[in-house]
């Protein structure tokens, strides 16, 4: 299929619902043509509302939306020429697979020959050849998902929107479709906008992730940027596991956590109260007397150890009562057991300082 992709641009988009609640709070965002961008966030965070404003189903209260450089803020959904995959697929139940896929080709001035060629091509791409005459009800969830993709891609839209497309599938199928969606994105080269609340889908699929919370865009970046350099406590906790050491910033380089000074790299935050965030794989467990001067160390109590084959997951409880976890390669010998008092240590360069709590946004 030919490459056809457009960028999408949101300028200060705000949506205030009639009830007064704010769906989107002043969101600005630029998506390049051909990118795979994920809108990630908990339910009610504004990610689906934002997708719906791009689709045209929700009219923003203020702000503007451009697709391929054209202002579409007031253009109805039927004239935006987008491909959309709905959460429960929304396949037309009374039509065959072929008629579902053909629906979007109507009125595009294509010859009969061209229409059937496009349908065949797209069904081959989503690996559904031979099922043209089935009704949606006669297909499995994964197959329905593929029909929905085929229907949204057959007219080669410059942008494809997907609203939690994998949430209705079971785990194994979800993993498989995730790989498929990645492949299809590479094949068609269209801009993909993918809404999900599943961090693994976001990390695994995206060129960039847009993290939403409470109607706002909190952070935009590549999966590794979001994982390694979260800019807020929310980002750190929503993506991946993290150990959070909340405390007061006492100098440009140190934060006091439960009476223990911890060093951090980078400048001091604007607020006095902040938190150091460390990922489980960057923490080490040592015996209490084993600490090294170049590391931060915090004493902890081991509350549980789980074996996962290639690694052990160690759950700990810190001085302030918060809990955390770290990982230890299972190739080394197990030196600790539940109930041990240990030191949890890390290299200050492998941790991030973020503003504390709700002020983070």
């Amino acid at each position: 299929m030919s490459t056809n992709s457009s960028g999408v641009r949101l300028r200060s988009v705000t949506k205030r619902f009639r009830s007064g609640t704010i769906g989107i709070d002043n969101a600005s965002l630029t998506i390049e043509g051909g990118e795979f961008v994920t809108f990630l966030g908990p339910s009610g965070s504004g990610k689906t509302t934002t997708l719906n404003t791009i689709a045209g189903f929700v009219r923003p209260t203020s702000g503007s939306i451009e697709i391929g450089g054209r202002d579409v803020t007031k253009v109805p959904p039927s004239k935006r020429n987008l491909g959309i995959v709905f959460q429960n697929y929304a396949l037309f139940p009374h039509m065959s697979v072929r008629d579902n896929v053909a629906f979007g080709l109507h009125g595009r001035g294509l010859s009969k020959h061209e229409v059937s060629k496009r349908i065949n091509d797209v069904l081959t791409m989503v690996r559904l050849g031979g099922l043209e005459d089935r009704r949606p009800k006669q297909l499995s969830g994964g197959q329905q998902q593929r029909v929905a993709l085929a229907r949204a891609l057959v007219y080669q839209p410059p942008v494809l929107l997907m609203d939690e497309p994998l949430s209705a599938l079971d785990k194994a199928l979800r993993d498989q479709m995730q790989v498929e969606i990645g492949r299809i994105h590479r094949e068609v080269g269209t801009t993909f906008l993918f809404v999900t609340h599943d961090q693994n889908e976001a990390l695994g699929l995206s060129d960039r992730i847009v993290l939403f919370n409470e109607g706002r865009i909190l952070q935009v970046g590549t999966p590794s940027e979001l994982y390694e350099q979260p800019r807020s406590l929310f980002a750190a906790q929503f993506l991946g596991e993290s150990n959070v050491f909340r405390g007061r910033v006492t100098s440009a380089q140190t934060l006091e956590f439960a009476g223990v000074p911890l060093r951090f790299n980078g400048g001091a935050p604007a607020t006095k109260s902040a938190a150091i965030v460390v990922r489980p794989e960057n923490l080490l467990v040592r015996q209490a007397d084993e600490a090294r001067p170049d590391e931060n160390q915090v004493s902890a109590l081991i509350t549980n150890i789980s074996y996962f084959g290639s690694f052990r997951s160690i759950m700990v409880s810190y001085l302030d009562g918060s809990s955390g976890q770290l990982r230890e390669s299972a190739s080394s010998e197990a030196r600790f057991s539940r109930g041990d008092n240990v030191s949890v240590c890390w290299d200050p360069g492998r941790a991030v300082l973020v503003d504390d709590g709700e002020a983070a946004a």
Partner: protein
Amino acid sequence: MSENTRGGWGLWIWAALVAVLLVAPLLAVVPISFSAKQSFTFPPSSLSLKWYENIVSSPRWWSAIGTSILLGVLVMVICTLLGTAAALGIHRYPGRVGAVVTGILVAPMIIPGIVSAVAIYASYLRWHLTGNLQGFLLAHTVLALPFVVVTVLSSLSSTDPALERAAASLGAGAWRTFARVTLPAIAPSVGAGALFSFVTSFDEVVAASFLQSPVIRTLPIEMFVSVTNQVDPTIAAVSTVILALTTMVVLLPVIVRNRRPKGASS
């Protein structure tokens, strides 16, 4: 079938009793219509078709049957169009506007028939709508409309709203979305609503008895007049004909649906 899905003898007897109570009067009417004597004796002592001959040869009955069918069909067409359109509108504005409009349209279903009929008669007298087809048409449309609105509305609310969005995203305008997506989804309910509205009109007695004149009478009114004027089994013959017709109307869709191959029935 397992033992407990069948139910015991008690349940069977109860079900049979209810069935007999419901059907018995009908089953008495049919034999009486074939009686050779001018009486309602049951069972009839001798058989004939003369009461049927009576219907066929009487312009009175023909005219009443014609009026009722014409009226029923017109009411059905108008109610189906208006009722479906109203349901679509109400569905689109689910707030206070929708609730108020629903309330007004459905009111004839709740207001006692005699109250509606008196109100209709009082106003139609002033509007010169008594004793003519337009009056019947208007009255029956008002009375039958709720059945279409309610059935179509319930079907709309159980239809996935994403279907219309999907059609829009695929470039379909309002008309194409309605014709290719919404209408096929609600078609069975539109059909049921149409049937209900026909039957409502065909069966309506109270308003019709106010609006009738010797010139225009619907079938139920003609039957009523006939019973009060003379006692003869013609009325039983008419009842039997109506019974046969309505049974056919109700059974036809069921038979057609069962004939269709399984895969296509969804």
